């Protein structure tokens, strides 16, 4: 990551959207680069080495999904997708092809920033080897494989831990059902969503103060699960 200010590449063909994103991101301390087309975007990622990419799906020259796939073939830069389509299958497809998270237009700046920072933190964690992920009162030590709630040890089964571990690695960002199922139970079970429902219910009983009003292990309907934003621990307010 850039020493002083992080660089963000905004890829969108609508000038009004680019303008407010620029204002909002600069206010948050980013250095903003623009790209209007998919080809521009691919070039800019190579030349400018951004710390974050915000990618709109409706581009004039190529489908946003194609840009994402081409970019992911050589870059792991944190990437948030802007989508107008509130179509869950589409979102899942984008997440599976490597987007770190998505926001649906129209969206508030705070929501976008929360997703972006979470994705960037994951990148930092991966490079620094920081083992502890926090979400509200919950702390997950990925190195020692220890989970504590308000400092007290929580006993989990191996699969419960594995599930929490994957969510912790993506803390603050959504993880799809398919990904979780594949990682925890293996490829033959990618459609057994009910495994997740059963395990998440058990997990919530162990880590949530009120399992019917979870604040740590959050559901994204039709998509997957999200471990609450590590720092905030509180819902995002625009």
């Amino acid at each position: 990551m850039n020493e002083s200010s992080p660089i963000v590449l905004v890829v969108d063909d609508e000038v009004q959207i680019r303008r407010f994103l620029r204002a909002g991101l600069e206010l948050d301390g980013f250095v903003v680069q623009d790209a209007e087309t998919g080809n521009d975007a691919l070039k800019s990622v190579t030349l400018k080495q951004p710390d974050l990419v915000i990618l709109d799906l409706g581009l004039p020259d190529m489908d946003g999904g194609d840009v994402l796939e081409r970019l992911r073939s050589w870059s792991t830069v944190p990437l948030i997708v802007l989508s107008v389509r509130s179509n869950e299958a589409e979102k899942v497809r984008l997440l599976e092809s490597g987007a770190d998270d998505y926001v649906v237009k129209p969206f508030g700046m705070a929501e976008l920033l929360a997703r972006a920072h979470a994705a960037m933190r994951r990148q930092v964690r991966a490079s620094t080897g920081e083992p502890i992920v926090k979400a509200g009162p919950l702390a997950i030590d990925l190195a020692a494989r220890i989970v504590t709630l308000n400092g007290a040890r929580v006993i989990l089964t191996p699969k419960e831990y594995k599930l929490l571990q994957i969510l912790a690695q993506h803390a603050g960002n959504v993880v799809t059902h398919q990904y979780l199922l594949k990682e925890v139970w293996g490829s033959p079970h990618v459609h057994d969503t009910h495994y997740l429902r059963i395990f998440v219910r058990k997990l919530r009983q162990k880590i949530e103060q009120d399992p019917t009003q979870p604040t740590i292990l959050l559901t994204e309907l039709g998509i997957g699960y999200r471990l609450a934003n590590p720092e905030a621990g509180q819902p995002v307010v625009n």
Partner: protein
Amino acid sequence: MTYLWPSHVRAERVWRELRDIGLALLMVAMTTVVAWALIRYFDLRRGSFIYLVPVLLAGWHLGRLPAMVAAVTGVLWSGYFFYAPFYNYFVARPAEILNFALFMAVALVTSHLANSMKRQTELARKRENQMSGLYAFSRRLAAAPTAADIYRAIEEHLATLVQRKVVLFGPGDSGVEVPDVPEPVRTAVASIQRGSTVSTTVEDGNGDIWLVRRVSQRTPDFGEIAIDLGSVGAVSDIRTRVEEALSDAAATLERLDVAHALNEAKMRSETELLREALIGSVSHELRTPLSAILGAATVLRRSPAIEQNERLRSLTGVVRDEAERLNNDIQNLLDATRISRHQIKPQLEWIEPVDIVNSALERRRRRLADHNVALDMDSNLPFIYVDPVLVQQAFVQIVDNAAKYSPGGSTIKVSAKRNGHNVVLSVGDHGGGITVEEQAQLGERFFRGPRLAASTSGSGLGLWIAKAFVGANGGRIHAASPGANQGSTVSILLPFAPEGNQPETAPDE
């Protein structure tokens, strides 16, 4: 093949006649057994009338010829038993000749009566069939929502009338699929549609002759019809019959004002398509500027100059909230379009009911900020197999209504419970309530209660959308209210699978 058809029928008729004569003789034989028994045990000598029984029966049930056969044999046997010289078939005495004449008369009269009665019954039944067919047809016409449906009804009606394979071609834009017919027939139809002729016959290349013509000679409104008349031999006969049936049918179509119904249906579907296309494109065009407005408002709120000025900050809140509301209205329009186009296809999966409620409340967190939300949810509800996104959107509509129609500061009670075979997700408010009259119309498209329509904004789509979404998931919506201004509770009821069919436990090793 068709050429052999009449002689084949004739052979069958001869065979049936022979069988009937055999039956008549059998009846006479049985009568003879009875007569013989009467004479043997009771010494009866005046019983020749007994032979009228087989004559009557044969006349009534079997027809003229068997009845006459029965009469002749009957007279001979009665001469044998009842007239001197006994046990002799010789017929000579005046009484016997009178007997013979009487038997013949009975045979002829009975069979004639029976025959004409049978014909009457047949005719009555046929007329009744026709009437009920016509009645069913006119009812189908009245209920047909689109031009294509009307054409299908006409086609079936004509097919039953002419008793042949019938293919109907609607005018080009009627929405009727182009039927699969042999190429020469298609060409003939096209030439009639161009108006060069109104009726023609073509050979389809497989030896069958098709009659192709306008359904009505007078107007092209009812389209063109192609009828397979069969192969060469029988054609002219059938053609006359078919032409007659068709002119009857065309008269019926005109009488029932089918042309008018067709035009109405076409206009309806065109308007509907136009409206939906407009809604679709307008919505998409509005989305982008809305994203910019909402996004910009949230950026403004974060800028230092405004963050410290409470008045300006609340103004940016107004921009943001109204943009969001507009976005919801657009979403409702799009959803309504999807529903009326039958494009709702639930993506079913197992889901924790509580997640649906929480996700809906999360989406409406700001809208509910002025209310006191009281949650009452069971932690151990059965999982349900639904499209969670659709159900959540339905629940959001209900939450919206509660927030809109109940005063700020009041309590909105949200619960998720199990009741019988349903998981029940409800929202209870202390708002305007629902009167009995309103209850009847609740959930209709564009319905808004007149009491509150003036003081609140809305499209009247919300609950209608909610109903459609919940219905698509096999559930239903229930609304209860003690009356006007006494609040209401609106619930989504979703059936869950019984214990045995709940998802199996996931492997934990």
